């Protein structure tokens, strides 16, 4: 397919890989921010082709993974109500809340529908005026414009039976939080290309300068990823820390003005809780006061829900790059893709699910987290030496780590 096939060319990939191998002289840790990039890296086996000393840390940019538990529970609560049509992107249906998921709600009689766009949900609201249609508006800056557009259109068309359950998150405050974490190992970022195609790059130079960290706006096809990595290691090796745009066919410095205008109209910045990580200041969007009537949380009065995250789940540490998935005690035993404790094991973009598959390939024997340190010569799933000893601390961990971790992060 035009504009896709060109970015899969094995010969060009080889040349980029050669250049990366020739450039890298010591260990570096890069974080790819976006879950779409993680997916592409795993899908194409890119991580296995990079130099041993180059570590890719999977970032928190998987919207399915970071949508907070309380928001999933609110979704489950609203979707269970009679008269509600609950619309969502497909991969949210399998994300566990406190005890069940949207698939279960559907099996129990809830009207849960997969749509490809919030505007499709708005169409359902117009076609079925006697039902309350709710769209689960999650995601990063990428999905925000369409969600904003749906609400804008609902108001313009006078559609009153449509509302949005909003749990939007923003990348720059998350990058800030990651860099301020005391045990942060990230030395460069592959910034999320599609986020930047909406937002532009204006938010990044200050972050790059203050944290002295290269930030390369990177796309999603294999050659895009390799070009992002190549530019990042070139900066690292020469001691630079600039913002570079390695995805110019989609990203302009000023972003997408029409999308930005719609976001500014419909949303306002708010603190947002990230699943497993905690609350990060100014890291989300909610509906602006003028659009409060379209806020599903408001309409269905689901303010105070008791949530219960499985204590064994350490997805928060995984999302921050503090531990590798297989270092979690639950990994591969009580937590597998078919019975996931955390969202990182559910989404195909989630680091835990990706590791689960890869680990089975490298070490078909059952999970062996107990043995540590790893015997010499036995590669861990990335083929790299295990990171510095990190004593698991979960046994005494409180069930509600959000506040504590937020203090540390924020």
């Amino acid at each position, binding site marked *: *397919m035009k504009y*896709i096939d060109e970015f*899969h060319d*094995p010969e060009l*990939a*080889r040349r980029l890989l050669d250049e990366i191998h020739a450039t890298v002289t010591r260990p570096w840790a890069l974080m790819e921010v*976006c*879950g*779409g990039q993680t*997916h592409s890296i*795993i*899908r*194409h*086996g*890119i*991580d*296995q*082709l990079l130099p041993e000393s180059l570590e890719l840390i999977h970032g928190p940019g998987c*919207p*399915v993974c970071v949508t907070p538990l309380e928001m999933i529970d609110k979704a489950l609560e609203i979707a269970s109500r009679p008269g509600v049509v609950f619309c969502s*992107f*497909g*991969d*949210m*249906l*399998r994300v*566990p809340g*406190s*005890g*069940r998921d949207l*698939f*279960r709600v*559907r*099996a*129990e009689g809830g009207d849960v529908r*997969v749509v*490809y766009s919030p505007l499709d949900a708005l169409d359902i609201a117009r076609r079925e005026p006697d039902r309350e249609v709710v769209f689960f508006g*999650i*995601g*990063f800056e*990428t*999905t925000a414009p369409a969600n904003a557009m749906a609400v804008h259109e609902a108001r313009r068309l006078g559609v009153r039976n449509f509302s949005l359950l909003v749990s939007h998150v923003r990348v720059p405050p998350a990058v800030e939080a990651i860099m301020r974490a005391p045990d942060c190992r990230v030395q460069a970022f592959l910034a999320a290309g*599609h986020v930047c195609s909406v937002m532009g790059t204006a938010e990044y130079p200050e972050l790059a300068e203050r944290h002295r960290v290269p930030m390369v706006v990177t796309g999603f096809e*294999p050659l895009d990823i390799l070009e992002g990595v190549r530019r990042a290691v070139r900066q690292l090796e020469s001691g630079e820390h600039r913002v570079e745009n390695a995805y110019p066919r989609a990203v302009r410095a000023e972003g997408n003005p029409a999308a930005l205008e719609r976001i500014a109209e419909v949303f306002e910045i708010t603190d947002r809780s990230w699943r497993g990580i905690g609350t990060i200041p100014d890291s989300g969007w909610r509906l602006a006061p003028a659009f409060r009537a379209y806020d599903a949380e408001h309409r269905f009065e689901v303010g105070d829900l008791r949530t*219960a995250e*499985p*204590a*064994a789940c350490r997805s928060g540490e995984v999302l921050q790059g503090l531990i590798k998935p297989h270092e979690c005690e639950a990994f591969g035993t009580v937590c597998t*893709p*078919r*019975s996931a*404790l955390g969202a990182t094991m559910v989404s*195909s*973009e989630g680091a835990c699910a990706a590791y689960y*598959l*890869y680990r*089975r*390939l490298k070490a*078909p024997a059952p999970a062996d987290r107990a043995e540590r340190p790893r015997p010499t010569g036995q590669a861990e799933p990335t083929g790299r030496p295990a990171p510095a000893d990190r004593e698991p601390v979960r046994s005494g961990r409180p*069930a509600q780590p959000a506040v504590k971790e937020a203090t540390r992060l924020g």
Partner: protein
Amino acid sequence: MAEPTTPAVVDPTAWTCPAPLRDHPTVVLGHGGGGALSAELMEHLFVPAYGNETLAGLGDSAAVTLGGARLAFSTDSYVVRPLFFPGGGIGDLAVNGTVNDLAMSGARAAYLSCAFILEEGVELSVVGKVAQAIGTAAAAAEVTVATGDTKVVDSGHGDGVYVNTSGIGLVPEGVDIRPQRAAPGDVVIVSGPIGLHGIAIMSVREGLEFGVEEIVSDTAPLGGLVAAMLAVTRDLHVLRDPTRGGVAASLNEIATASGAGIVLTERDVPVPDAVGAACGFLGLDPLYVANEGRLLAVVPRAEAEAVLAAMRAHPQGAGATVIGECVAEHPGMVVARTPLGGSRVVDLPLGEQLPRIC
């Protein structure tokens, strides 16, 4: 924390082997998706309840001996929505699906039964159109619809037209085709481009259009193609039609049943441009998309060239190509070699493939 993440409604002591089912105490759509959930339902609920060795083979069709004859026997229900789609309809699927299940045992379908479950209020012209399609498809597949049944359910208790077909056919002498027979060294062949049926259905169901060309379902009977392959050699190890769950699910079933590892060379897998584009838009993987007129063949390396030539000489196998091989490494697992030179595990899908958010 003591609370389980999923409350167990099923009483675990009152059931044969309920453990994996406890995560889903009610039926979810994924139980019919042809993936891991379907497999668990079979393994832990149906097989223990019916308890016999014929069923435990879990092939697309069962091979049974009756009065000295070896028969392949299979049944399948069709609940597709919409009833008609580019390239076919529920009638074509109902015939070709069962004919193909029999063909995967090496049998040429001889007789079909055909049962309708109709919803009160469905227009008779629709039922007639489905019946006509069944007749046409049966003639094309050279199979006789020998018996049938019709039931009507209250309005709102069905989705228009459901069809069940069962079929029997003779398994030729000396033929032993089953997933357990895949062995290291065998070659994996696909009979043509993949993903067309699933994307054709999605394009009409979701109102999506991909590119300039219309995507047409590949629904077709495969009995003739299999006969042509058997004319070359009786020693076909495995045949599988990759329907629900696609090529990925079928290869995983073969790997699990045989204990062989399977390596796919991803760049050799024939994915039509339009299917690739649609999957790109929706965040789907063509390896998991359903086919209705394709087969996967696992054959001894020594026979591969002759089988491939016979397939390419047949209309249903014109696009046949080698996509991988069975290996001794990673037993029971399917691994794809990516065009860049990396590799990834191709896992059994859990249930329905879900479009990704980004």
